[in-house]
């Protein structure tokens, strides 16, 4: 191969390669939890920040009853957190990224499909005793992430993942978690 | 009886309407040093190309060391050494690699260095041929032709591109090979350089062999004095229709 051919081929090859090093992988670069005055509080920890092809990222989400009274929690899908998602604030009906949990497979109320999910709308209720907490693991599958950015944790289907009340006769209160999860794209080049 | 080194019978080559070689009948005996002379375009290279199976004849036959040069190419080339005209060497390969290619293909046991010493290139044995001058390439090709002690050495314009030292070297090689018993068949358009080495010459002109014989015999035929050169013979034979300038070109 002479010099000209060699240059032509390597230029063509390298420019073609720019977007070819596999599909993008992400890092959970930060998780920020806002203060809320509810009797309910969420603690979100990124247990596995690496959203790679071979292994999803993992969030441990703990729902705490910070109050002195038992809280009755009502939602759909799986109890108590439901089918969660991360949303970038766009117009779409459901959240942008579906968070996956092992409970979905165990429950017959949630069906996860390769490019979406569906659920049964029958309400589930349960009680979280005062000062108790409950922890669930959710995974972020990189295939379901289409871009890096800041996402808000919310219900996948409805913005509100759950409702609660502190007594049998109290009104149901919609719970808005305020958790921001930031994903950044991993670069192949150091 | 040993067959002639080269024997052609009505050997012709045409390219379209152009006759490059016209019914050549020529015999070169084994052990001879035969100078194949003529101006550029006379058909010398065409003849060698035919004998080496570089090209196929339009008509006629030939035998090289008793073999059919086109259908029995392996047996034929096993015993022939060729130093071609108008060639380039392999620029990335060293002189040693060039010789190994020939030595190993012929399954000969020559030492590349010894061969290169014979042509004065031993110092350049590991250098890639891409760095060689034309004269060095010519010497390398000559060394390649000597591999395996060939019975027939075909040298196509071996003096081209050589300085006086190189010319003397080719003459020495031709003499040494002839003494060993090899037949040497070489072509040249530089007539002045062949007097000293040839047993016999053939003169080719416009695709025809117009004269053939030992130099004394040719001088007699042409009625020239004993100090006449091949050039004079050539001028006489072509009746001055080829000018000396063209012959030397």
């Amino acid at each position, binding site marked *: *191969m002479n010099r000209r051919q060699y240059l032509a081929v*390597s230029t063509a090859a*390298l420019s073609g390669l720019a977007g070819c090093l596999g*599909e993008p992988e992400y890092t959970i670069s930060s998780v920020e939890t806002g203060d809320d005055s509810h009797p309910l509080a969420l603690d979100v920890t990124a247990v596995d920040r690496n959203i790679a092809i*071979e292994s999803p990222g993992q969030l441990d989400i703990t729902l705490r009853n910070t109050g002195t009274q038992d809280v009755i929690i009502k939602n759909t899908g799986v109890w108590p957190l439901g089918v969660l998602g991360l949303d970038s604030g766009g117009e779409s009906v459901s959240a942008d990224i579906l968070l996956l949990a092992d409970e979905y497979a165990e429950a017959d109320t949630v069906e996860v499909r390769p490019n979406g999910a569906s659920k049964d709308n029958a309400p589930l209720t349960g009680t979280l005793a005062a000062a108790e907490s409950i922890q669930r693991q959710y995974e972020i599958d*990189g295939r379901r992430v289409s871009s890096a950015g800041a996402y808000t944790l919310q219900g996948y289907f409805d913005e509100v993942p759950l409702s609660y009340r502190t007594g049998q006769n109290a009104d149901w209160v919609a719970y808005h978690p305020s958790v921001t999860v930031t994903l950044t794209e991993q670069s192949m080049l150091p | 009886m040993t067959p002639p080194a080269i024997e052609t019978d009505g050997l012709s080559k045409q390219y379209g309407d152009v006759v490059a070689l016209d019914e050549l009948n020529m015999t070169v005996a084994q052990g001879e040093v035969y100078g194949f002379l003529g101006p550029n375009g006379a058909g010398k290279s065409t003849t060698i190309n035919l004998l080496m199976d570089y090209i196929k004849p339009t008509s006629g036959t030939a035998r090289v060391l008793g073999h059919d040069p086109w259908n029995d190419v392996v047996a034929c080339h096993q015993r022939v050494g060729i130093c071609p005209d108008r060639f*380039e060497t*392999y620029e990335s390969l060293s002189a040693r690699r060039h010789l190994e290619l020939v030595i190993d*293909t012929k399954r000969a046991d020559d030492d590349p260095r010894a061969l290169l010493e014979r042509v004065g290139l031993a110092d350049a044995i590991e250098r890639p041929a891409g760095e060689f001058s034309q004269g060095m390439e010519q010497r390398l090709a000559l060394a390649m032709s000597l591999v395996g002690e060939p019975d027939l050495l075909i040298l196509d314009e071996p003096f081209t591109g050589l300085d006086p030292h190189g010319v003397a070297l080719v003459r020495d090689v031709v003499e040494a090979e002839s003494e060993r018993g090899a037949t040497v068949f070489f072509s040249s358009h530089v007539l002045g350089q062949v007097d000293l080495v040839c047993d016999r010459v053939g003169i080719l002109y416009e695709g025809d062999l117009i004269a053939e014989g030992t130099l004394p015999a040719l001088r007699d035929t042409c009625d020239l004095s004993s100090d006449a050169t091949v050039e004079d013979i050539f001028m006489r034979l072509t009746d001055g229709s080829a000018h000396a300038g063209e012959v030397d070109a």
Partner: protein
Amino acid sequence: MALPRWFPVARKEATTLLKSKGTWILAPLLVVWGYGPTYISWDTLGPDVTVGFVQVAGSLLLPLCVLLLTYRSIIQERTSGSLKFLLGLPLTRTEILIGKVFGRSVGAVVPFAVSTVVLGVIGGFKFGLFSPLRFIGVFLVTVLYIAVLVSVATAASAVTTSTVRVTAVVFGGFFLLLTLGWKIVGVRLYSAVTGNPVNPLDPPADGLLFAILRLSPGRAYRTVTNWILGLANSGGQYTSVATVLYPGHSVNEYVVDAAFSGQPVPAYLHESIALVVLLLWGVVPLALASYRFNRGDLA
């Protein structure tokens, strides 16, 4: 056993390639080109996704570079006159062609082998231990594919008298039409012959369509390697094939299993036939070229 007579010619060809910078630049390019995991292919193949990298490395850049490294191998010697040395050796012209093909193939396989090892290490590190048998199998089929490409380019180089023509035949014809663009050309051909339109996202279960597609050496190569991967019967890149098979996804690729879903598949669409197609590409053009090369004037 004695080495064949053409072996020194093959050694010279391999040495020439391995001394050229172009050959060695191929190795890192193939690694970068071949490495391209997708979520779906990981989901489908698991650690064997690494084996797929080798297929991708072998799919576009490798043919292009192998053709570039070979297409002038004879015409160049003919033009420069160095062919006179080869023709002057005690070899038949066919043996010269075989030596050329063998030597250039080895010269091209070496950098490919280096990149295969690197891809194996990178992939094995990230995705875990893959099936060594599949990995070696795909490597060997790629080696065969390299030999086929060298054979085709040598054949073209042997029968033309101008570099321009051999460039047109090898890159315009063989590479662009038959290797790179055959998915489009082949489907058009099928539609022209049968009059059936083809929806690329939902191709008809017609054996002829798939048979035409499989005539491309590149698609035949991928059919065999997808077979070794245990993926599906298709001449597409493994990532595309995995996507076609993935529920809820579709992509413009022709997969026998998807198109025929449940219907009987004609025997000639078996993957082993693609191996035969590949072998024919290695033998037929060279045999035809050899026939002409043996009879032509070469100086």
